[in-house]
């Protein structure tokens, strides 16, 4: 079984190597299929490994295997260790499975791009990085995967590297992630100093030794990393900008890989976080604030991908709420369903954009449901799942999180519950605003002009792009059935062993109550969206220009977070650097010592030039004075 996991890990790396070395010699389509098949093989291995794992008794499901020592110094030693358990298995399946579909989709999406082979190599690298992240058995290797994911996202967001905006977004993502890396690294240092180990087994065994402060600080630092990677407050600003990358990347980042890493980290480190209850509360609050804020911002965005990006932020915030409430299974369950419907949304949006020749502004769309019926159908499934409508997958997982809040029955629990429901309302509004604006409303002149042409060319899209969407649509529709309250409990029973200290699990009654309320609220949201956006309505204009103008503006500028970072961090660094370069380094450190030396030499030169005037008499005079002085010295000393 461990061999299979190793193969899963190594396969994408082989893909990267082959594509990097042979890349230019392979035809683009072959390269695409090669990368995709690699992913399929990886998925198959992961699936078989999971199946084998499932046959084992629950106590034997944690597998740790050491390959070789990666780094050592003194008593510090980090191995290239593999960790495979139920949580890893879920992550592995999501990453390789959804990853495979996105690979296939990319073949079609990138078929006109001359650099598609590089793209495929990057995709494989991305999956590999994520696999390192989830398969590592210690924090340092996790950090390595963490950084590699950041690197891959940098490469992919900035894939169209002649677009300065894309490069800027890529750099932003990288820097934000680097800040997260730093937090994570500091957390690791702290844990090593306190516990003398960085391996999961060691930390989990020793976590009880930590005082609450120590545990809180360490968890807080780990949280910084998680927040940066998962694009949560306050390090979320890179996520919307990351939409500059090709659409499959957005899908991969948002659905299967990168942003889920933070949730994974918290769920993985739950034996540690359990000792820092305040940090757990903080996670819930970050989640609640984040989901409401991003929901609000999503309502006013006009770029189709940005809307979905903010929806990702809000859904990840739900997951944070889940793991923060120690309902780890619910968080991971939402991560699982989210992977389907979010990938579906992005890939569907990609098809729409594709059909519209690259147009991303939803105001230039409209009325597409007649021309693009298949896409419309799939997108509707995704939208219902996202809005958490029973019985689509998102409904089950989101309600599981909320009912956990109800079950906890503390202030934090209620905050989570009410905030989550409010978020559900917002989700309904913005999701269906997108659906109505894109598919329903009367078609915009642009869409009317472009769509028939594009349909005539390649239908709704090439089959490599459509099939992944169909498969995802099935997942988005039915994945939730794994955990029907009171009926099935695949997820809870599977994930139970990962949290030795137990998880919050709502009662069946609480679950169904939440589902009822959640679905109702979601439907209300859809209704509001229908009222505002499905028909030609003046209401949005009224909001934009009327009393809500300032709020609207603020939401459009994403509540000024970007400006805050620009003025508090980016600009000061630039100023400091310019100032030091221009005024300090050159004068004080590069020239001052030399000038000093030069002045000194020149001073001595000038001083001796008085005597060294070439007149022999003067030399004789000095000689005589010297002799006189010497005799005087001897006289005085002799006396």
């Amino acid at each position, binding site marked *: 079984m461990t061999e299979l996991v190793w193969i899963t890990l190594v396969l994408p790396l082989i893909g990267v190597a082959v594509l*990097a070395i042979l*890349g*230019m010699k392979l035809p683009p389509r072959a390269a695409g299929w090669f990368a995709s098949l690699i992913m399929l093989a990886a998925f198959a291995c992961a699936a078989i490994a999971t199946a084998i794992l499932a046959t084992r008794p629950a106590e034997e499901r944690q597998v740790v295997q050491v390959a*070789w*020592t*990666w*780094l*050592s*110094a*003194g*008593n*510090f*030693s980090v191995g290239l260790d593999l960790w495979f358990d139920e949580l890893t298995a879920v992550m592995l399946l999501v990453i390789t499975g959804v990853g495979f579909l996105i690979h296939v989709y990319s073949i079609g999406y990138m078929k006109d791009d001359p650099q598609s082979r*590089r793209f495929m190599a990057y995709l494989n690298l991305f999956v590999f990085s994520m696999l*390192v992240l989830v398969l590592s058995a210690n924090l340092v290797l996790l*950090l*390595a*995967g*963490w*950084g*590699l994911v*950041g*690197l891959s996202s*940098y*490469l992919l967001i*900035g894939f169209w*590297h*002649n677009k*300065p905006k894309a*490069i800027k977004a*890529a*750099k932003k993502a*990288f*820097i934000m992630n*680097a*800040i997260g*890396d*730093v937090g994570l*690294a*500091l957390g690791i*240092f*702290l844990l*090593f*100093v306190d516990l003398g180990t960085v391996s999961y087994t060691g930390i989990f065994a020793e976590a009880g030794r930590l005082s609450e402060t120590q545990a809180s600080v360490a968890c807080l630092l780990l949280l910084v990393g998680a927040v940066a990677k998962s694009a949560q407050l306050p390090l979320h600003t890179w996520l919307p900008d990351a939409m500059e990358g090709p659409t499959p990347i957005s899908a991969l980042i948002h659905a299967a890989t990168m942003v889920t890493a933070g949730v994974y980290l918290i769920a993985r480190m739950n034996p540690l976080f359990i000792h820092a209850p305040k940090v757990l509360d903080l996670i819930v609050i970050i989640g609640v604030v984040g989901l409401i804020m991003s929901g609000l911002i999503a309502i006013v965005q006009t770029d189709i991908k940005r809307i979905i990006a903010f929806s990702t932020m809000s859904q990840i915030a739900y997951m944070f709420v889940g793991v923060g409430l120690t309902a780890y299974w619910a968080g991971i369950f939402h991560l699982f369903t989210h992977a389907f419907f979010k990938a579906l949304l992005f890939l569907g949006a990609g098809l729409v954009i594709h059909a519209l020749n690259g147009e991303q502004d939803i105001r230039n769309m409209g009325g597409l449901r007649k021309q693009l019926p298949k896409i419309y159908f799939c997108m509707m499934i995704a939208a219902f799942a996202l809005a958490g409508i029973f019985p689509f997958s998102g409904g089950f997982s989101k309600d599981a999180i909320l009912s956990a809040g109800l079950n906890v029955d503390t202030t934090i629990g209620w905050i989570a519950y009410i905030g989550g429901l409010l978020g559900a309302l917002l989700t309904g509004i913005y999701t269906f605003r997108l659906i109505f604006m894109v598919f329903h409303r009367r078609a915009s002149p642009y869409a009317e002009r472009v769509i028939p042409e594009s349909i005539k060319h390649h239908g709704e899209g090439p089959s490599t792009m459509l099939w992944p969407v169909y498969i995802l649509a099935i997942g988005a529709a039915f994945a939730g059935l794994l955990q029907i309250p009171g009926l099935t409990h695949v997820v809870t029973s599977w994930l139970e062993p990962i949290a030795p200290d137990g998880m919050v699990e709502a009662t069946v009654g609480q679950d169904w109550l939440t589902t009822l309320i959640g679905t109702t609220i979601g439907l209300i949201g859809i209704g509001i969206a229908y009222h505002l956006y499905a028909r030609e309505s003046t209401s949005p204009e009224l909001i934009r220009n009327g009393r809500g103008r300032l709020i609207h503006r603020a939401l459009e500028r994403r509540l000024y977070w970007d400006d805050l970072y620009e003025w508090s961090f980016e600009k000061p*660094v*630039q100023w*400091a*650097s*310019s100032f*030091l*370069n221009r005024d300090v*380094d050159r004068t*004080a*450190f*590069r*020239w*001052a*010592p*030399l000038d000093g*030396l030069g002045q000194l030499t020149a001073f001595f030169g000038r001083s001796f030039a008085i005597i060294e005037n070439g007149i022999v008499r003067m030399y004789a005079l000095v000689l005589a004075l010297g002799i006189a002085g010497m005799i005087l010295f001897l006289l005085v000393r002799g006396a």
Partner: protein
Amino acid sequence: MITVSWLIAVPAIASVLLLLLPFSQRAAGYLSLLVSLAVAGGVIGFIYRFEPLGGDQFGDNVAWITQLGIRWHVAVNGVTLAMIAITAVITCCAIGYGMWARRERSHASFALILMTEAFLIIVFSARDLVVFYVGFEGMLIPLLVLLAAWGGKGRKTAMIQVIAYTAMGTLLMLLAIAWLGFTAPGGPNFDLYGAIGRGNDWVFAAFAFALAIKSPLFPFHGWVLPAYREASPEVAAVLSGVASKAGGYAFLAVLVPLFPEQSAKYAWIFIALGAFGFLYGALLAFRQPDGRGVIAYSSIAQMSFVILGVFLLNSRGATGATFQMVNHALVSGALFLLAGWLETQAGSGSFKHLGGLARSRPVLATVALIVGMAALAVPGSSVFASEFLILLGSFEVHWWLGVIVTLGIVLGAMYMLRWISAVLHEREGDFVGTLNPPDLRRGALLCILPLALILVGLSIAPAQFTDRVDAAATTMISAAAKEAGR
């Protein structure tokens, strides 16, 4: 049995032959490449036979100047081996690059590079203070000639700056060595191990001053920018890749073991300067107008960081510092060669004229990305491994020190990303558009690729490195660490 003296003698003799005999350009190139490869082969043999816990190996210890008690005492331990290995690698690449660039008067140029290599190996393997001094001072001579004769427009100023700075430092060091040697009990004796613990604060200061200039440690870095900017790329690679490591190495392998008491007492000064220099260099690198400026200031930052690592006086810091030196040698060597390639092929090293080079140049893009990502210490890379060790060491000493220094990592990411995107990405620069440079091809690629590949290899298994070095590095700082109570 090949000892390290052979590795010194072979390039030295080759260098003299190249200077004296009328070789053709091609013959000179191939001969020096062969010699440098032979040295590299010798080093590989050392690595193969090396015993990590065996202390000094492959050494010679014979009387040299009997009247003054000076002995030709050279040997190899883990740290030395690492340093010699990068010296050999960078020299090969530098000579290869010189051949590719068709350096004029190449036989002299290569001879001087080989001479530098010989002196550097002397520095790294010397176990006698006078021998050490000979290497430390001697390596300046070929480097200065290389800078003065093959440098860019401002080479004269650069040379004067280098001389002014380094001469000041090494003069003091000579005094310190003389003091140590002549106050030895039982007549003059310059043995490195014999002088341990005999120095006083002044001797320590004189020594440290010379090494700080060479490294360079903030605020003695004034000579770095002009020298790195004006030297020809292969010389800049040698200069920043290995010559500057002589300073860092000497801090770890000579200064700290020689003066355990003073090292412990004044460690805070070096830690403070190192931490500040790390942030300072990173900040300055951020707004440099050209690639060489970025590399120069990043070198300042990195070497300050290395010295910080040495003076943490714990095993993590020492091993990390050694590892960091090796990584930085590979990174800055590769970056300088790339900068040279850009200057010849794209006509400029200035960001104003570059950009968009990644398009339809996949090899260049890949190599530059690997090196660039290593330089910004992306987690998982070998640079990350070494920085991680030093940071962990800092954190163990003072948690706030760890926090401060860790911030430098973000700054490092910022300037390296700027370099990558300004060269490879964004809009096509005007020079790139007009000159349309080709992709990185055979000759130049063969010089830069080994460095990138070694970086990748070290990233996969950094423990292969640290296991060999750890024992030696820990021994070096152990006495001082005991003094410091760590």
